[in-house]
């Protein structure tokens, strides 16, 4: 029996130290030195430039945040409570035939239509279903185009300029086919702010009043 105890404890201790302390610490050091932006959560400022400080960060490129006003593009619904809780990720876990799912989709439709009453266009399914993480940072290009009339009216900009903005923001999947085409909502909204600022006379700028 003694012949078991010594190798058992020694090997557990040494391999534990190697894989549980040295390995993650070494990768942390490497990540912090070589890829500080990515390793620290891909945070960006209000102007869209990379940052690592909590004070200047407006969010993460990779994490959805709540946009609910008519003047911004909206992300997909989030099933976390409260929505877009990046401290407790998760999906709805509603089955495909669960009446609660059908109700949830209906209320997402109602919310979109209430914000833009005249619009009778088809709503892309990703805009009324919640994502797996509740933090999906992306919407489909179709879901962005769908929101153009509402955002254009709220921001007093032409739909054509918004459509151009969307076209420039479409990201292709890796290698062109591994996944779907997507648009990062936070980045799109930062570009939207920039576009609106450019179109305005400096004296009207609300942030300078």
């Amino acid at each position, binding site marked *: 029996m003694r012949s078991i105890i010594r190798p058992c404890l020694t090997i*557990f201790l040494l391999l534990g130290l190697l894989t549980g302390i040295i390995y993650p610490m070494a*990768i942390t050091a490497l990540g912090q030195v070589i890829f500080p932006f990515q390793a620290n959560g891909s945070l960006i400022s209000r102007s869209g430039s990379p940052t690592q400080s909590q004070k200047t960060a407006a969010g993460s490129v990779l994490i959805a945040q709540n946009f609910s006003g008519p003047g911004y593009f909206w992300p997909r619904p989030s099933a976390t409570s409260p929505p877009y809780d990046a401290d407790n990720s998760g999906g709805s876990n509603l089955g495909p035939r669960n009446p609660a799912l059908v109700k949830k989709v209906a209320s997402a439709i109602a919310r979109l239509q209430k914000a833009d009453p005249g619009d009778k266009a088809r709503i892309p399914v990703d805009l009324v*279903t919640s994502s797996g993480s509740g933090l999906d940072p992306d919407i489909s290009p179709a879901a962005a185009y769908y929101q153009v009339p509402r955002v254009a009216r709220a921001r007093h900009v032409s739909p054509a300029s918004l459509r151009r903005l969307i076209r420039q923001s479409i990201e292709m999947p890796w290698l062109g086919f591994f996944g779907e085409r997507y648009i990062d909502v936070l980045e799109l909204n930062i570009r939207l702010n920039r576009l609106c600022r450019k179109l305005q006379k400096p004296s009207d700028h609300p942030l300078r009043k």
Partner: protein
Amino acid sequence: MWYDGWAQLAFLLAVLLLAAKPLGSYMAKVFQMQRPPLLGRIFGKAESAIYAMAGLRPDDQQDWRQYAVACLAFNTIGFAFLFILQMVQQHLPLNPAHQAGVGPALAFNTAASFVTNTNWQNYSGETTMSLLTQMLGMTVQNFLSAATGIAVMAALIRALAAKGTGKLGNFWVDMVRSVLYILLPIAVLLSVVLASQGVVQTLRADVTVHTLSSSAVAGGAAETKTAATQTIAMGPVASQEAIKELGTNGGGFFNANSAHPYENPNGLTDFLEMLAMLLIPAASCFTFGEMISDRRQGHVLLATMTAIFIVCAALCFTFEQQRNPLFPSIVGQHHTALAAGGNMEGKELRFGPANSAIWTCIATGTSTGAVNSMLDSYTPFGGLIPMWLMKTGEVIFGGVGTGLTGMLITAMVAVFLCGLMVGRTPEYLGKKIGAFEIKMVSLAILIPPALTLIGTAVASVTPSAVASVGNPGPHGFSEILYAMTSMSNNNGSAFAGLNGNTDFYNILGGLLMLAGRFWSIIATVALAGSVAKRKASPPNVGTFPTHTPMFGVILAGTIALISGLIFLPALALGPIAEGLMQVVH
């Protein structure tokens, strides 16, 4: 497009086969005790030092009893350490988010889960575990449980190649070499690439940002103020993510697992994580072929796995691209170049239905159980496929080590069935499959299904267990059946609407995971011990060849037959009933 799923599947399998062959030969060298090129120079001294400190002579050979006892003792230590670590984490360093100690029932379940390579999670990572527990508990067991699986596989292959010695190798040496020469080097490479793509790797537990819509915007329109700040959980994720996929563990740093953008930010990371899950299980087939000096035997096993996998993945992504008939017609559900379409509830937009379905089949065919989409929201038949893949005993690539082990055991059942039909003593690789072997094979094959069905039956008649169900109708039964299948087969994925963090599921589930894993390991090592004592007889005209496509077909049939016969009634009450309701609608 309809071909998107096929393109992703073909590309993935092509890269897999190219990478698995050299890795398989390399792994054979590792387990034949040769000095691995390059890494031998880096880790050679460390390896010898570990043996010296442990008081081991690395060329000491163990018989099956010694090997099994070493394996069980080592895993007992790992279990006890993780169990205690969780309960005292509030007193230990590296707990910036001030997580409380974990309660004993949940700590038992989680320790059982990570030691058995299941990684079933009744907790939400970002709100339960300290960074120290994630690293020293979860990450360590991700390595060690994977290495245990590989060690048992190496023992079984050596037994099949042995010439009557009865010796299986040395468990301690197999563990050390698996970690140093296989798991750790690949994990280091993978974690650095993942970190470069946006998988976080930091000792901060969270940051709080002031969101974009929290102040006035240009454009004049009144912007309703929404939550002004957002707290974003982080941690040393990349290092854990790499071994989580590579070791077919599957336990997420975050609750949303690989659907979380910090675990799996884009198509490239998604591809690499899928590849990592498949890599060692596929390479093991080549390792097997090299170690028994008959490569064709390994090829036929790999071809069988791949064929069944392609069928499952193609069916699954076809189902997931279907529209939900209950949604109103104003919702556009067609897949186009600009819209993912299909069943998007619980799926991430950057992946879409086709990619998510392929991932799911990989994670359940291997014993990983990681998810990049929420399985509870799958279409009825789309959710049936991952459930069936687990019920095969996870041999469609399977877990690291355990996949090939399971496939070899299934191959022995197949030759036994063929032997019965023609009235000859069954043989595999020239070794007679006698009464003792068949008893051990039967145990290894029947224990997980027995645990699954008994567990499901008990839960279905226990009011407190039924109260955990998150969806009405047959889908609720599917949640219970899925949970029991996942835990008994050491997978770890879930129909997560089921609330598993109750004393009932924590304790019953922990017992199922431990029994499913270690009873199977004991039966396998005993089988290996018996096979290793047998001398191989040279093939003659009456020998049933096991390297032919014909054998592959018989093997696939055996897998379908066993899992189908055992589980059809249970499946009929859950996903099949729900699917028929969907069709009738």
